[in-house]
């Protein structure tokens, strides 16, 4: 299968000001307005250029490893008993997650724009690693901002970035997580835009980021659709599931199925420790309309408009706002949102490891958790498509820590049905039980 990133395809585009209905926009300090306008123009010019598309697609195929397989997860399907589960294997990409699709696209764009320096924020470290990789490949300087708390829990990725020649700048402000890293990246960019491109890692931020990042990831959905037609006999699943931090892997997958009423699109947010404000990153249940990092969108905040802390076992979902297009599509009834708690995600992590031999990223494990709730109630001829956005190597320490803090042995049956494997998992038994369990 040839790699064809649908960059020039007519997508559902925001208006000129980057608005999806009342969401999105370009809420930025004046100094950044002209650089953002320049970025929008450069991107619109390049994405239509054949040479740029060819260059990107060539690298995606030979360097990044696209197309990624679509894999029928027979073990998981049998274990859950119900819908047929297909995994879109973004975890098999170079650097280990979907993030490279966007990072490479933007770094190529930056190079075309004549920039010599790249900055990025990172939460889980996957976007940082992807950006550092693209910068190393294309010979650009790279600085990655990362919250100190995230540096602790994703320290392998910190060293990976350093090995790739990037400088990892520790951010010790606020909650020391993704949102603070984004603040710091914007502060750098205000002073450095002349020679620097800011590679934002998800579908948030001011115009043009949400539409640009989505478009670089839309290859996920377009591939999956073609692969499903071959493998499952239908291009359209009954349900498509993806985890939602800022929402880039979800937009990438969902973009191929928008406007198709027969496909139920489900985004899974981080339910964290429970439903109390500050304990989770579930914007669709706990958020209110606000303006953060350049866009009008759902934000976890108090009544005074101060952004509140978030919690998730997965650094990549630990963010108080969500991509504006998601909110728009939710209003339109096109995407449904739900959440999975830390504990459910950990269970999903163990389950996929035991039934398929695949360690998912803790972010992706949230999507798996949703599948475990949904699949058993569906018919055997129905199809669930899951975006396995990344691999779990980076999370092994976090899972170890989490399990050590609880420590009972829970049997998970093998797909063959016979003997069971023991997986350590936390004490509080089931899903949804939520608050306090993880503590």
């Amino acid at each position, binding site marked *: 299968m040839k790699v064809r990133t649908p960059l020039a395809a007519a997508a559902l585009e925001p208006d000129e*000001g980057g608005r999806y209905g009342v969401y999105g*926009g*370009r*809420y*930025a*300090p*004046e*100094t*950044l*307005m*002209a*650089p953002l306008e320049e970025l929008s123009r450069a991107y619109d010019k390049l994405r239509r250029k054949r040479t740029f598309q060819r260059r990107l697609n060539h690298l995606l195929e030979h360097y990044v490893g696209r197309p990624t397989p679509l894999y029928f997860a027979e073990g998981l399907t049998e274990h859950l008993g119900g819908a047929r589960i297909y995994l879109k294997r973004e975890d098999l990409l170079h650097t280990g997650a979907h993030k490279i699709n966007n990072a490479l696209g933007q770094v190529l764009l930056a190079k075309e724009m004549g920039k010599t320096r790249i900055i990025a924020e990172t939460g889980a470290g996957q976007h940082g690693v992807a950006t550092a990789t693209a910068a190393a490949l294309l010979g650009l300087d790279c600085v990655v901002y990362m919250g100190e708390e995230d540096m602790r829990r994703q320290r392998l990725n910190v060293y990976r970035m350093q090995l790739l020649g990037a400088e990892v700048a520790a951010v010790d*402000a*606020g909650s020391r997580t993704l*949102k*603070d890293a984004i*603040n710091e990246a*914007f*502060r750098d960019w*205000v*002073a450095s*835009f002349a020679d620097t491109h800011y590679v934002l890692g998800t579908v948030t931020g001011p115009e043009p980021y949400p539409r640009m990042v989505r478009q670089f990831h839309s290859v996920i959905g377009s591939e999956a659709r073609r692969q499903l037609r071959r493998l499952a006999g239908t291009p359209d699943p009954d349900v498509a599931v993806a985890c939602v931090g800022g929402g880039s892997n979800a937009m990438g997958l969902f973009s191929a199925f928008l406007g198709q009423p027969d496909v139920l699109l489900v985004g899974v947010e981080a339910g964290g420790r429970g439903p109390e404000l500050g304990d989770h990153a579930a914007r669709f249940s706990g958020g*209110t*309309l*606000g*303006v*953060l*990092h*350049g866009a*009008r969108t759902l*934000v976890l*905040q108090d*009544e*005074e*408009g*101060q*952004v*509140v802390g978030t919690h998730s076992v997965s650094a990549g979902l630990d963010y108080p706002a969500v991509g504006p297009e998601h909110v728009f599509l939710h209003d339109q009834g096109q995407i449904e949102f739900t959440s999975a708690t830390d504990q459910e995600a950990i269970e999903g992590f163990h389950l996929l490891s035991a039934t398929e031999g695949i360690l998912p990223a803790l972010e992706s494990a949230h999507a798996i958790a949703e599948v475990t709730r949904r699949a058993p109630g569906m018919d055997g001829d129905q199809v669930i498509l899951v975006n396995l956005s990344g691999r779990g190597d980076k999370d092994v320490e976090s899972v170890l820590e989490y399990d050590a803090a609880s420590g009972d042995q829970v049997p998970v049956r093998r797909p063959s049905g016979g003997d069971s494997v023991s997986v350590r998992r936390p004490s509080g038994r089931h899903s949804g039980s939520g608050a306090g369990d993880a503590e």
Partner: protein
Amino acid sequence: MSRRRKRSSRDGAIAAAFKTCAKERRSAFVPFLVAGDPSLEATPDLLRALVSGGADVIELGVAFSDPIADGPTIQRASHRALAAGSSLSAVLGIVERHREELGVPIVLFTYYNPVHARGVENFAAQAADSGVDGVLCVDLPPDEGLRELQPALEERGVDSIYLIAATSTRERIDRAAAASNGFVYYTARSDVTGEREDLIPTLAREVKRVRRRVRLPVAVGFGISTPEQVEEVAQVAHGVVVGSSLVRLVEENSAEADLAARLERRVRDLTAPLGARVL
């Protein structure tokens, strides 16, 4: 654009303050502090100190959890203020209780989210009732502000002030100028807020470029912290904004009983060279 106003801001207190300065052939001094730093109780005294030191207009900073346009000094101040219980409600309360007594126009310097969270109509009404003279939202360029916030403020005679930057194109300068009342704020550096050793060498030329296109007074801020810098900027600007340097003074002296007196002395030092404007 609607020109409906209950209280004509063209002749509002901000415009009047700049007019007075013009008559006195000097630039206006516009100090900035974060409201609630180090505490809500301390703020009124500090504002009085600004006035007795020579402030013509006060920029009162509303602390925000995610101040992306601010350097470390104001970030720390915002953090302290939030920890001390500051909020947009608290700031409006301070203005309501002290605006009249201070006798100097007050511009709220804020990020947009606290305003948005309150609802723009609510905010505009409460700001007007409290005696707020103008509002500057750092992350609300005219592109969004003209539609979202300005009509509500205009309706109640509260001035909107927009930023102009070195990167602003001619169209953007014109748009900000047409949208602003009272004055426009030119950011002296393409950077976050914070003290700097030097002004950028092209500053005078840049400010003149803006002044040629703008009928309103032009105040210049970002990175101005010493009397020498104030003097230099006053040569070309109608107003000089000093923020981080005063915020740092508050930070370093917050435990001192005579904090307000120290602040007043510092403002006096900064305003001393202001007679020198030769516009």
